[in-house]
């Protein structure tokens, strides 16, 4: 602090402000906890934390796990909205804990954190994602072509690329599928995420198996179970127009059949 430049004075003042914890607020995180090694019942547990409102729900979960109760179990990897590990139901809405700032979800009231719905809860916020990924695998989410391998890359015009750009953004977090009431009902519906990822290849000009994927989604538990609830579009942390993608698959099916 010896060099008295304007900048340094400013940052010293800031340092002082931050070291007084004046910016911290008390938030209550109400977490739905379940540990099959202790009980067959899930229960709500409240944690009171001193947090900066600009921090994220993931930071609050970290604080609990690292400083209060190390048994709290949740998935996260990248912590920056890319890996899709930490979708959870926060204040009743599916979101990524790493993309949800405390100040954006009214930290004055207790913030509820639950596992996403419609999938078996294994422990605390961790669910069994297998049925979700089974539906994903069932739509063949990989490039399928006929004929010989080209010796160079498969070219595509920017218009053709634009056609399915939105659905390439999916990070498979399951926020959409686990927000869909049709999926909650019986878990047999392919679900928005699988349809989004089918859409990504159905409308790819380089792919040649659109017909097969459409046939799969034309079946009993395919796109026709969608009731246009729009929960998926609201839930998607990547801002994908999920319901629109589903409707485009429906339209492709109808125009192919008639």
């Amino acid at each position: 602090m010896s060099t008295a430049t304007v900048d340094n004075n400013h940052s010293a003042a800031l340092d002082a402000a931050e070291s007084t914890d004046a910016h911290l607020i008390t938030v209550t995180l109400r977490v739905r906890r379940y540990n099959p090694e202790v009980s067959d019942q899930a229960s709500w547990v409240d944690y009171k934390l001193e947090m900066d409102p600009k921090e994220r729900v993931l930071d609050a979960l970290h604080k609990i796990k690292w400083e209060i109760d190390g048994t709290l179990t949740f998935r996260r990897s990248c912590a920056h909205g890319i890996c899709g590990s930490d979708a959870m139901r926060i204040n009743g809405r599916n979101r990524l804990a790493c993309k949800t700032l405390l100040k954006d979800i009214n930290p004055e009231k207790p913030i509820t954190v639950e596992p996403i719905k419609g999938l078996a809860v294994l422990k605390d916020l961790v669910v069994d994602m297998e049925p979700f990924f089974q539906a994903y695998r069932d739509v063949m989410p990989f490039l399928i072509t006929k004929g010989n391998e080209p010796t160079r890359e498969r070219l595509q015009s920017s218009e053709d690329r634009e056609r399915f750009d939105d659905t390439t953004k999916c990070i498979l977090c399951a926020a959409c599928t686990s927000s869909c009431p049709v999926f909650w009902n019986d878990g047999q519906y392919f679900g928005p995420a699988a349809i989004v990822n089918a859409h990504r290849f159905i409308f790819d000009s380089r792919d040649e198996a659109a017909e097969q994927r459409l046939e799969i989604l034309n079946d009993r538990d395919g796109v026709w179970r969608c009731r246009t609830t729009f929960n998926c579009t609201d839930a998607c942390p990547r801002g994908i127009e999920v319901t629109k993608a589903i409707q485009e698959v429906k339209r492709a099916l109808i125009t192919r059949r008639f």
Partner: protein
Amino acid sequence: MSADTPVDAVELTSTSGASAFSPDNPAPVIEPPRARTKRTPRATRTNFELYGWLFMRLSGIVLVVLVLGHLLIQLVLDGGVSKIGFAFVAGRWANPFWQLWDLTMLWLAMLHGANGLRTVINDYAERDATRSWLKALLYTATAFTVLLGTLVIFTFDPNIQ
């Protein structure tokens, strides 16, 4: 983040009494109603659901005209419900246009409603047996109503005693 932040964890609901569960004997996981497996869903390879979906929308459009028109004629125009009687029905069914109107409305509304309830049953019935029974009941009631209604429209006798 300072380590000496005051924190207190409050247990809201205590878990079920003396714990019979342990790492070697864990409780069953909390399952959703039915889980998707490798073998489900069964492929049927038909366009039935596509036609069902289209039918709901097309019949819906026609039903807007038929049902609203029906309600207007029956309940609003010419003195409302008070005019409805045997003579009123006989008078309308003397005209093939109204016969056709009512016939179309009967078939479309019944099939539309039945297909809608089929969806509801598929969604909410949890056991296969419940689902089959509810659907059997639904299809029987639908067939009965459609056939009886059709019979009446075509064999209606205005001079019946």
